[in-house]
C-alpha cells in the first residue's frame, strides 16, 4: 500500500482543537484528506490509522481525557486496536488513551503547575520497536513543540520498568542549548511518548502536526509523521 492509499480517521470530541491541524498535516503528507469522525459514532469502517487529536475534549473536566475516554467512538477505537489496528494519540489524545487503559499510566498536572507551550528536543529511544518509529533512526533527535497543562507522565515503578524492558518508551525529552531544560513537565524518566505492548498504539505529548514546515517553526513533525505513515503503509 502507498501512503496515499491509507485510510486515516481522526476522532473529534467536543472541545478537540487540534483536529483540523492534524487533518491538514495528514493531507500534506498523504495528499488525501482524512475523515473526521464525531465522538457519538460507535462504529467505524475498517481503517489503517486512527488519530486522537489534541485539544481540550470535554473541557478537560474531571480529568483530562476522562470524559472523551468514555464516549461511544472510543469503543470503536478499542475494537480497532484489539484487532491490531494502529492508533496515534497526541497530547489530549495521549491522555484519552491512558484514560481508556489502552496505554499504561496517566498524565498528571505539570510539575511546574503551569501550562507550557514551547519547543522541546526529544530523542527516539534506542530500544523502541514499533512501526510508529521504525522509520526514524534510534537515538535521533527531533525538535517538536509541546503545549499542555497535564503532560507529567506517571506510572507505577513496575509499569515503568516494564515499559523500559519491553522497549515501549518511544520518545524522551533531552537537554538542549536552545530549548532550555529538558523535561518541561516533570514526566517520569523524561518520557514524552510511549507505545502499547504490541507497538501499534502510540501516545505522545509533543505536537508533530505543529512542526510541518520550516516557516512554522520546523519540519521535524513532518519527518516523524511521514516515517510512521510509511511504516504503517508497508
Amino acid at each position, binding site marked *: 500500500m502507498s501512503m496515499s492509499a491509507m485510510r486515516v480517521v481522526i476522532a473529534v470530541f467536543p472541545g478537540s482543537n487540534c483536529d483540523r491541524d492534524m487533518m491538514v498535516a495528514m493531507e500534506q503528507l498523504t495528499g488525501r484528506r482524512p475523515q473526521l469522525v464525531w465522538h457519538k459514532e460507535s462504529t467505524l469502517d475498517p481503517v489503517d490509522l486512527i488519530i486522537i487529536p489534541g485539544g481540550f475534549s470535554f473541557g478537560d473536566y*474531571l480529568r483530562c481525557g476522562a470524559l472523551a475516554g468514555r464516549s461511544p467512538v472510543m469503543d470503536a477505537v478499542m475494537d480497532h486496536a484489539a484487532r491490531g489496528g494502529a492508533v496515534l494519540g497526541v497530547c489530549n489524545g495521549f491522555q484519552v488513551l491512558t484514560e481508556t487503559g489502552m496505554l499504561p499510566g496517566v498524565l498528571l498536572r505539570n510539575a511546574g503547575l503551569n501550562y507550557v507551550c514551547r519547543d522541546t528536543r526529544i530523542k527516539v529511544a534506542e530500544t523502541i520497536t514499533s512501526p510508529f518509529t521504525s522509520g526514524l533512526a534510534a537515538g535521533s533527535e527531533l525538535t517538536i513543540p509541546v503545549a499542555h497543562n497535564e503532560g507529567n507522565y506517571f506510572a507505577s515503578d513496575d509499569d515503568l520498568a516494564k515499559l523500559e524492558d519491553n522497549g515501549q518508551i518511544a520518545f524522551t525529552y533531552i537537554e538542549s542549548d536552545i530549548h532550555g531544560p529538558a523535561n518541561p513537565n516533570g514526566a517520569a524518566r523524561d518520557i514524552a511518548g510511549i507505545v502499547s505492548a504490541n507497538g501499534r498504539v502510540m501516545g505522545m505529548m509533543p505536537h508533530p502536526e505543529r512542526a510541518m514546515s520550516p516557516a512554522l517553526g520546523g519540519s521535524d513533525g513532518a519527518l516523524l509523521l511521514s516515517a510512521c505513515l510509511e511504516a504503517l503503509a508497508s
Partner: protein
Amino acid sequence: MQVVVNISLKEGVLDPQGRAIEHSLRGLGFQEVSEVRVGKQITLDIDESDPARLRQRVARMCETLLSNTVIEDYVIDIVEQE
C-alpha cells in the same frame, strides 16, 4: 492534627465541570443522576493541638489562600487523631 477542608462553589455559581460530568454519566446509562457539583477536598496536617486555635488558623488559611471566597464556600473538618 489532620484537618480536611471541603471547598465547594457557592450556590448560583456556574459549575460547568459538574454539568459535563452529569451529562457523561447519563450517557453511560446512569439516568438516575442529577445536580452534579464538583468541589475540592484539601487535607492538611497541622501542628497545633488546641482545637479552637486550630480552627481559627485553618479558617485564616481558607480566607487567604485555600478558597476563593468570591465564588467558593469552605467547611473545615477536624479529624481526630488515632
